[in-house]
């Protein structure tokens, strides 16, 4: 029973439940997409988690992204309809990496506003990631090369190189910084938003390249998303930023080489 009581007291319990629900939704979406692809062309890059987006677009996206990109209004509609999917991806992939910051925010806020503070943090943090996804990843997905088999190894190789840049290291170190949280009123909310914005921006600069790789990973996307989420989470948990980023760079480079080889042999 003490274990249960301890679990119930966890200030991040509801966030962890939300992350689990997001992954469940992605899995269900994958299943539904596979079911529908058996009756159509199947195997195209837009299947899988994008199912939620494509469902939102009705029959439009089922014709593929290239046709959808042919006219500006259709593209805008595609981006708007994709927002829930990108938000879901942000919850599934980036919320786990933010758990220490959410926990810190909750525990250093006044006791009776712990949940509210955690929610405020997540709204800003995930809002940043969703905005990045809609405005950057969304348009990227409409480009022709993204459908190519080499998109994933190129993205993984680029992510491996990004890991070695000074800007990446500075951003990863900044992910470990906190900011003072005022206790009450609008200042408390503003303080949490300020912390979440700076933490989210640092996270974005640190991890954007890996998110691009996840977005262009094509068939088997859920596995790639899971692996990249785990990699980013472990990297952000590590108190030795340089070691962590270099280790992950090596992993990404090995993955890029492996995928490229598989494509060439296919």
């Amino acid at each position, binding site marked *: 029973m003490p274990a249960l009581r301890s679990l119930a007291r966890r200030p991040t319990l509801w966030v962890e439940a939300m992350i689990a629900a997001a992954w469940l939704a992605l899995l269900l979406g994958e299943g539904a997409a596979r079911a529908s692809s058996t009756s159509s062309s199947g195997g195209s890059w837009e299947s899988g988690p994008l199912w939620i987006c494509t469902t939102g677009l009705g029959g439009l996206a089922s014709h593929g992204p290239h046709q959808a990109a042919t006219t500006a209004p259709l593209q805008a509609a595609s981006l708007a309809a994709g927002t829930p999917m990108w938000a879901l991806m942000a919850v599934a992939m980036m919320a786990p990496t933010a758990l220490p910051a959410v926990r810190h925010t909750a525990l250093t806020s006044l006791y009776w506003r712990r949940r509210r503070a955690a929610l405020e943090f997540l709204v800003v943090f995930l809002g940043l990631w969703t905005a990045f996804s809609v405005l950057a990843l969304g348009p990227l997905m409409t480009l022709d090369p993204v459908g190519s088999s080499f998109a994933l190894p190129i993205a993984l190789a680029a992510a491996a190189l990004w890991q070695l840049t000074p800007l990446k290291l500075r951003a990863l170190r900044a992910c470990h910084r906190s900011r003072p949280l005022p206790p009450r009123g609008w200042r408390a909310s503003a303080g949490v938003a300020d912390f979440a914005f700076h933490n989210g921006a640092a996270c974005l600069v640190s991890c954007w390249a890996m998110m691009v790789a996840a977005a262009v990973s094509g068939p088997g996307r859920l596995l790639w998303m899971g692996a990249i989420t785990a990699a980013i989470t*472990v990297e952000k948990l590590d108190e030795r930023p340089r070691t962590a980023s270099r280790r992950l760079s090596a992993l990404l480079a090995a993955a890029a080489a492996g995928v490229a080889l598989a494509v060439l042999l296919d």
Partner: protein
Amino acid sequence: MFVRSEARSPKGQEALQHYAAAVGAMKKRESSSPTSWDYQAAIHGTESSPLSLQKQCEHESWYFFPWHRIYLFYFEEIVRQAVVETGGPEDWTLPYWNYDLGGEFASLPEPFRQPADEGENPLYVGVRRPYYNAGGPLPELVSTEEAALALREFIGNAMFGGNNKSPHRPRFWGQSGLPEETPHGTVHVQVGGWMRNPEEAAWDPIFWLHHANIDRIWAVWNEKEGLPNPVESGWTDHPFEFFDAAGNPASKTCGEVTETALLGYTYDPPPGGGTVEEVVPTPTEPPEPEAGAPTEPKFVGATEGTTILEGEATEVPLEIDPNGQEEVLESAEPDDPRHLYINIEEIRGDSTPDTVYATYLNLPEEASDADYENRYLTTLSFFGLERTTEPAEDEAPHGMRVSAEATEIIRRLRDESDWDRERLRICFRPVVPEPSLDMPEEARELLDTSHASRHSPIEIGRVSLSIDA
């Protein structure tokens, strides 16, 4: 069993003579030799590009005590060999400087001050604060170990040992145990010169006697509290590597150094009481670990905005939230198991200032001696601040944080009808030695010029009040 003696005891004074000769010999060795003075000092910190195992000191975490114990153990072996080489005894040990004894004990031992010539005296360092090189005593708020020994937990809210710092456990602040602040950090900052900077501190020969005393305080506390050291494998199995007397790499884990007996030495008087002859060189069994991690405190109030310290007295109001005002009073009841804590959070600054600050709650404008005593919370040194905000090597940066228990003070304020349920006043006062008749004349003359200084701003992001959950 080796026995470390107080620097002013007859054995300590004899050990200091040999120490001076050995330090002189080590200073002549090549800097690249692991047994040289320069190399040993740089293991703690260095402004230059670090060589193997250099710039490794651990502060603001639960590794502070074990890292420094292992550091001193191997350093003592190296110095002992140099002592023997310079004609000294084979059972030489590092003396400790117990400034908490007060009186003459609170001033630098004479061999570190006289002769005041770096060429002639290997223990003399000219860049120390002139007041201390002239024999001035440390203020009691700087040298006291009383608050440190009153702590109950190694890890907790107001703790002895510092917060959990495992490689895969993210933390948003570095928090030292209270002894790391007082007397450790406060003595570092007050002595000044190299001692004020973690990158230079170990070049001052007094550093090692100061840390022997900090090590003794850990041993005394362990005897008093029954070895309540961490039992997590991230602490017990964590190794630290140094060089032994032969200059070869050697390592020990934190779990291997929880008692001085495990390393074959004790202190005179022994930490557990009695005489040195009665000390049995057999380690005792640590207590069974208690289940569960320490509970997180509930925050019930905090300051708004940043507080800046620049060398002058500063006050800041801490508003207590209406939802928590009753709970604060309940927690201050003598039979209530909960404790109240004041947390000084998100401390940032470019460098360690040369001023330490005593912190008080609700200090009146015309405070009496009793007010200063009854409303005293803790002393802040900010030692190693630059390492926390811009850490060396491959470490993540953090804000610094200090927590001190405030239950007794708040109970007294309530009993003295000086309790405002809506707010507390947090008062920071620079600590300056008081002139006294038994102070050396030269030190008294240097008192004003030696301590009056402004410094680059120290930012305190928030001061908060919390209660055990």
